[in-house]
């Protein structure tokens, strides 16, 4: 910057200067997170009818964000938590708010950590496989949640958790494939920076 430039900057009114944030929440990051969170609410209304429930595609934007190599993993985690809470809000918070918060945190560690490590180290196919494996792991760990929310004994809660596996596999499989395809399409464009 020359001395002339510095003078020109001084002449710009205070209100017209561009504020450059250097922290995590930069304007561009907040903007894309807002768009993706809004898209996850749209996805929450896209139900997949199955015999044992209707899982929705609310995690697609979170999968998309976690597949982007140059984006931060924490923004995918925030999107995943809010996607779960907003999707639950559209259904009246089934099983109660504490359970949905726990599910949101579980969704964040699933999408933003397990899937992202597989994506960064081994690629898209590994990320899809990790998603399907983690769907089974979450279902096997879910009896505690059902015992807490419904007051069931361990055997009943475990059986109920197992019945959720097919629907979860279908929803997670479709969501991760759509997210991976979208991320692959824009990976080398200016959007990925």
């Amino acid at each position, binding site marked *: 910057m020359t001395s002339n430039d510095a003078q020109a900057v001084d002449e710009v009114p205070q209100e017209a200067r561009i504020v450059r944030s250097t922290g995590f929440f930069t304007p561009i990051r907040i903007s894309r997170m807002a768009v993706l969170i809004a898209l996850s609410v749209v996805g929450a209304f896209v139900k997949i009818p199955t015999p044992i429930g209707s899982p929705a595609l609310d995690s697609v934007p979170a999968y998309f964000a976690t597949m982007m*190599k140059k984006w931060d*993993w924490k923004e995918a*985690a925030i999107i995943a938590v809010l996607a779960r809470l907003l999707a639950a809000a559209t259904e009246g918070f089934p099983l109660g708010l504490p359970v949905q918060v*726990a*599910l949101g*945190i*579980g969704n*964040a*560690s*699933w999408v*933003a*950590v*397990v899937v992202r*490590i597989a994506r*960064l*180290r*081994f*690629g898209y196919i590994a990320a899809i496989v990790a998603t399907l494996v983690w769907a089974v*792991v*979450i279902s096997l*760990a*879910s*009896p*505690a*949640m059902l*015992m*807490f929310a419904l007051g069931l004994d*361990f055997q009943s*809660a475990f059986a109920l958790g197992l019945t959720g596996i097919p629907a979860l596999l279908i929803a997670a499989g479709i969501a991760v494939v759509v997210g991976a395809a979208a991320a692959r399409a824009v990976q080398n464009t200016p959007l990925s920076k």
Partner: protein
Amino acid sequence: MEVFAYIIFIVVILGPLVAYAIYTALRGEPRRPDKPAKGKTAAAAK
């Protein structure tokens, strides 16, 4: 049995998140190095 179920649930939902947060704070994200360009692009780069 119930206590174990609660512990496993908490470890499964919180474990990866906390472990990865600590790991990335200390070491950065584990990334596979980018593949070198192939064909005409590589020749043009030279």
